C-alpha cells in the first residue's frame, strides 16, 4: 500500500503549506523586528564614525566603541557638520550618516549621480573629515570609515566586514591592522591621488614609514587585503575635488 505521504497531492499541499508558514513567519519577524534592527544599525554607524576620528573606549589591544548609550550624545558633540556632495555641489544634511553607500554605488553604476556623504568632526581644535567607503572582500561586503585631515592624510580608520574568514580576513577590524593607517598619506606631494596599498612585500611590518603609501598585509588574507586597497582607492578618490577646493579657498 502506498504511504499517505507519498501521494502527489499530499506533496503539493505540504509544499504550499510549508511555504506559507515559513514565509509568513519570516516576514512577520522581519517586519516586527525591523525598527529595533534599524535603530541598532543607526547607533552602530555613529559608533563607527566616532571610532574613526579617535573617539572610542580602546584599551590595550582591542578595538572598543563608545557605548551605545553615549553614542548619540557624543556624535552630536563631536560631529560639527554632515555634508552631502552631489554633482560637485556641497549641501549640509544632518541625516547624511544614514545614506546607504551600497545604494549610492548601485546608482552610480546605473548612470545616476552618486551622493557622497562626508562628516566633519572636531576634537581638541583639530578638524577631521570622515568618509565612508565600501567594497568587496573574499566572501562578501567589506566597508569602513576613514578620517582624514585637510591634506587627505589618514587620521584614523574603522573597517568592518560581513563575512570574511575569522582569524584571517576578519582581522581587518583588529587594532593592529587599523592603527597602521594612522598618518599614512593618500596624496602625493604634487596633490595627485595615490591611495594606500595593502602590500604583502612590504619591508616595513611595523609601519614606521608613513610616506610609502603602503600598509603591511595580513598573512593569509590576500583577497580581503586587495579589497581594502580597492575600496580606499576607488571611493576616497571621489572626495579629491572637495579637498582640492578646500585648499584653494
Amino acid at each position, binding site marked *: 500500500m502506498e504511504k499517505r505521504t507519498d501521494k502527489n497531492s499530499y506533496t503539493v499541499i*505540504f509544499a504550499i503549506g510549508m511555504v506559507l508558514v*515559513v514565509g509568513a513567519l519570516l516576514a512577520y519577524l522581519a517586519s516586527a523586528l525591523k525598527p529595533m534592527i534599524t535603530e541598532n544599525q543607526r547607533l552602530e554607524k555613529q559608533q563607527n564614525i566616532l571610532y574613526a576620528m579617535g573617539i572610542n573606549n580602546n584599551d590595550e589591544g582591542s578595538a572598543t566603541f563608545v557605548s551605545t548609550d553615549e553614542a548619540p550624545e557624543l556624535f552630536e558633540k563631536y560631529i560639527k557638520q554632515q555634508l552631502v556632495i552631489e554633482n560637485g555641489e556641497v549641501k549640509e544634511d544632518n541625516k547624511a550618516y544614514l545614506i546607504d553607500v551600497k545604494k549610492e554605488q548601485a546608482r552610480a553604476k546605473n548612470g545616476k549621480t552618486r551622493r557622497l556623504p562626508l562628516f566633519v568632526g572636531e576634537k581638541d581644535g583639530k578638524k577631521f573629515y570622515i568618509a565612508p567607503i565600501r567594497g568587496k572582500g573574499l566572501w562578501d561586503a567589506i566597508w569602513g570609515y576613514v578620517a582624514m585631515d585637510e591634506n587627505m592624510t589618514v587620521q584614523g580608520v574603522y573597517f568592518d566586514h560581513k563575512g570574511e574568514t575569522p582569524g584571517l580576513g576578519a582581522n581587518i577590524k583588529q587594532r593592529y591592522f587599523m592603527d597602521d593607517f594612522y598618518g599614512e598619506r593618500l596624496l602625493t606631494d604634487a596633490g595627485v591621488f595615490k591611495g594606500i596599498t595593502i602590500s604583502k612585500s612590504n619591508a616595513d611590518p611595523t609601519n614606521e614609514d608613513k610616506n610609502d603609501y603602503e600598509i603591511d598585509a595580513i598573512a593569509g588574507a590576500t583577497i580581503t587585503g586587495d579589497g581594502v586597497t580597492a575600496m580606499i582607492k576607488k571611493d576616497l578618490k571621489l572626495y579629491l575635488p572637495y579637498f582640492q577646493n578646500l585648499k584653494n579657498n
Partner: protein
Amino acid sequence: MGKDTKLILDPLADNNPITIQVLGICSALAITAELEASIVMSISVLFVLGVGNVVISLMRNIIPSKIRIIVQLIVVATLVIIVDLVLKAFAYELSKTLSVFVGLIITNCIIMGRFEAFALGNGPWRSFLDGIGNSLGYAVILIIVGFFRELLGSGTLLGIKILGDPVAKTGLYAFGYENNGFMLLSPMALIVVGIIIWVQRTRNKALIED
C-alpha cells in the same frame, strides 16, 4: 553502556562526524585559523543541530519523502535566519560576531547529514541526543585544529600571546623562533585534519580503510 550515552559518546571518537563520516568539512577548514572562532562555530552548530534534529524528528511522519531534502534545508535555513534576526534586534554585538557563521551553518552538511541519517527515523529525544553528540564530536576536531593553527600560525591562543611578542622579540622569539604563517592558510587545515585522522586510526586499528 546505555543506549542513550552511546548516542552522545560515539560521535566523539569512533563515529566522529568529521574524521569518519566526512561531514561538515567546509566549515572546519574555513574558520579554524583562530581558536575563538572554532569555539563560537561549535556552539552555534550545537544549537542548530540540537534544535533542528528535534524539529525534523517531530515532523518525520508528515514530511513527504519526495521533497524531504527541500524541507530539511528550509527548516535549517529558517531556524538560522530566525536566530539571526532576533539576535540583530536584541543582542546586536553578539549578532555581529555570529553573522559570519550564518552562511556557513546553513551550508554545513553535518546538519543535513544528521537530519537525513538519524532524525528522519528516530524519536525527538534520541534525535536531540544524537544532535548534541555529533556537534560535540565536530567541536572536538574544530578545537584541536583551531588550537594548533592559532598557536603555530600566530603564536597566540584566544588572542593571548603565548609564545612571546614577535615584534619586540621576547619569549621564544628571542631565540629566533618565527611564526609559521603558512598554518593560517586553509590548505594547512586539510593537512592538520589529515594528521588527526592518521593519529586516530593508528590508535584504533578497526577504523583503518582497506
